[in-house]
């Protein structure tokens, strides 16, 4: 009877195709994944060769495949062994996976819809605070052994209280996490929303310092514009020269969402002309940008390598939530299935 009521879960075979993308510092704890599955970790950042992906899968015959932002071309999926029943993306986006074909092969694709709200939101705040205090300029001067700031300060710096923060798509979970900090910092919040108002029951629905404005008004009135919307056909390249030229010359543009929301070539042109005071980009159209891209050398642009998800605890959460997805699958419950 004891056996019938609490059988041990079966331990399916799993293969993490590019575990190093997630565990680049070898600091993550995979023990739960190892307990739930007979896990093989392919300790690389990425595999681009179709043949190589096909080979490694054939060799391991896994029931579960785990990926992190790795392209799975149609050709690869078509040659999947029939052992594969579940494909876990250790992240939110899954446009790297042909989900319809997976469905036609009776393979569930699951993702992790939300795991890094604060990690991303806090990167927005980091950029705001740094731009207000001209920290990037100061770092550059010190690296050039230029200490004149310590005699006569060279850069305009501002208080944050009373400034306007505009959030494109800011009524979502990450936008709300940004507002959670921006309000105590004394900022006024402007949000653009296609509906013209915050969703019913939104945390800040009745807060007098949080207003919904039109997209153009947001660009015109903000001291800091932050992009916090998803990337889709509508938002792709939706922020370009036209929008940047609406902004105040003293204002800053921040992108922690997806690089392709900004028309990067147009942004570069604007930044070369100093149309606005600065841009902070945690995401770029290609990550990293091309070696010869001008974006690397603009004094008024600061780039970070998609820090939003890289914090140690955030990545550990990805591992733990992948384990949750797998455990649910093993128990016959489906969670976070996207196809």
């Amino acid at each position: 009877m004891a056996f019938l009521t609490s059988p041990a879960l079966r331990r399916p075979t799993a293969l993490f195709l590019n575990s190093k993308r997630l565990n680049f510092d070898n600091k993550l704890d995979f023990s739960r994944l190892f307990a739930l599955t007979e896990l093989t970790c392919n300790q690389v950042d990425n595999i681009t060769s179709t043949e190589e992906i096909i080979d490694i899968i054939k060799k391991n015959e896994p029931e579960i495949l785990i990926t992190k932002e790795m392209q799975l071309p149609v050709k690869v999926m078509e040659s999947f062994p029939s052992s594969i029943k579940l494909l876990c993306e250790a992240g939110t986006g899954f446009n790297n996976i042909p989900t319809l074909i997976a469905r036609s092969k009776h393979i569930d694709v699951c993702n992790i819809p939300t795991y890094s709200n604060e990690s991303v939101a806090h990167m927005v705040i980091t950029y705001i605070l740094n731009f207000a205090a001209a920290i990037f300029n100061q770092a550059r001067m010190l690296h050039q052994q230029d200490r004149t700031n310590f005699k006569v300060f060279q850069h305009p710096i501002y208080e944050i209280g009373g400034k306007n923060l505009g959030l494109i798509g800011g009524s979502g979970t990450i936008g709300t996490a940004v507002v959670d900090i921006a309000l105590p910092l004394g900022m006024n919040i402007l949000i653009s929303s296609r509906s013209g108002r915050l969703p019913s029951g939104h945390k800040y629905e009745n807060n007098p310092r949080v207003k919904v404005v039109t997209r153009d008004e947001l660009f015109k009135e903000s001291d800091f514009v932050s992009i916090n919307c998803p990337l889709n056909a509508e938002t792709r390249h939706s922020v370009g020269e036209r929008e940047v030229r609406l902004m105040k010359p003293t204002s800053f543009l921040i992108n922690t969402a997806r690089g392709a929301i900004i028309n990067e070539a147009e942004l570069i042109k604007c930044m070369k002309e100093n149309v606005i005071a600065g841009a902070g980009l945690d995401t770029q159209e290609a990550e990293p940008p091309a070696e010869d891209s001008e974006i690397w050398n603009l004094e008024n642009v600061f780039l970070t390598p998609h820090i939003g998800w890289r914090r140690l605890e955030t990545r550990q959460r990805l591992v733990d939530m992948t384990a949750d997805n797998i455990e649910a699958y093993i128990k016959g419950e489906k969670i976070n299935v996207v196809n």
Partner: protein
Amino acid sequence: MQPVQTQKTMSFAATRALRRPTAIFLNSSRLNYDNKLDFTRLASLTDLVCNEVDNVTSVNEIISLVQKHQPEIVITKEMAVPTQVLEAFPSSVKLICEAGTGYNNIPIKLARERGISVANIPTYSNEGVAHMVITFIMNFSAAIFDQARMLHNNDRSNFTVFQHPIYEITGKTLGMIGGSGTIGTCVADVALPLGMNVIISSRSGKLPKGHKYEKDPRVRVVSFDDLFRQADFVSINCPLNSETRHSVGAREIRMMKPTAFLINTARGAIIHESELVECMKERVIAGAGLDVQETEPPAEDSEIWNLDNVFLTPHIGWRRIETRQRLCDMTGDNIESYVKGDMKNVVN
């Protein structure tokens, strides 16, 4: 006709223009180094002369200036006013306004003996300073200073494999030395929404009665030593006095976690700087962010400039434009209250 005249006389008496005393700002460029401040109120309250320099070190030069203009009011910003200078002040001087909080640059007892009031601006930059603490916390969590250094060296390897440990801020512990005061409370106002736990050292062992966070379970008072042991970020938020001078040195730093960061936005001399330099060379802790230093700026040849785990800023806490404008406006308030015979913020 009499009532009209009486009315006229009364209205004149009721709205008599304030007298406009002569004032000299001995080193206005220390405050208005970018020429962006609005001095119109000061210039309308007083017959104002601005000596547009950052500092006057020559005793004779200060004396000459003051004797030339015979001001009633002398305005200074962090400028030493030696005893010799004060003794040579003309009898016209009745008020010295320090356009800031600290006034250890002015011999206040001597001033009182000579019938001169000294006024300061006790509080004007709580958020300006508090937000600098938060800036350091966010930058250290995301290894921003390291990234900036790599990019300046044209090293883009972070963009293929990230080199530095970076952490979430939620759940980390912020320890504030002297954090129960106004600036510490402003820091907590942001640190708590960031999800941090806050520990404060306080000589009394508890938060003052009625303190904003008295009942908040995420805010605890701990001993001075426990603060160093438990904090992921130690921030100094106490005043400089004989008790706090050099109170943070090698002993305290060696109690900190090796992954922890030390932040000073208060006064440089609270930290024993040479001991800090030794500790940072040994990588006892992960980093230090100093908006204030023992001398500002540090000596040209100080090792503190070249430590890759120390980031220096030139006392940003008060430099933001709105903060400096507030200093101007509050100096205007002090002067207006003096002219109306209702003096405030007198420190002697």
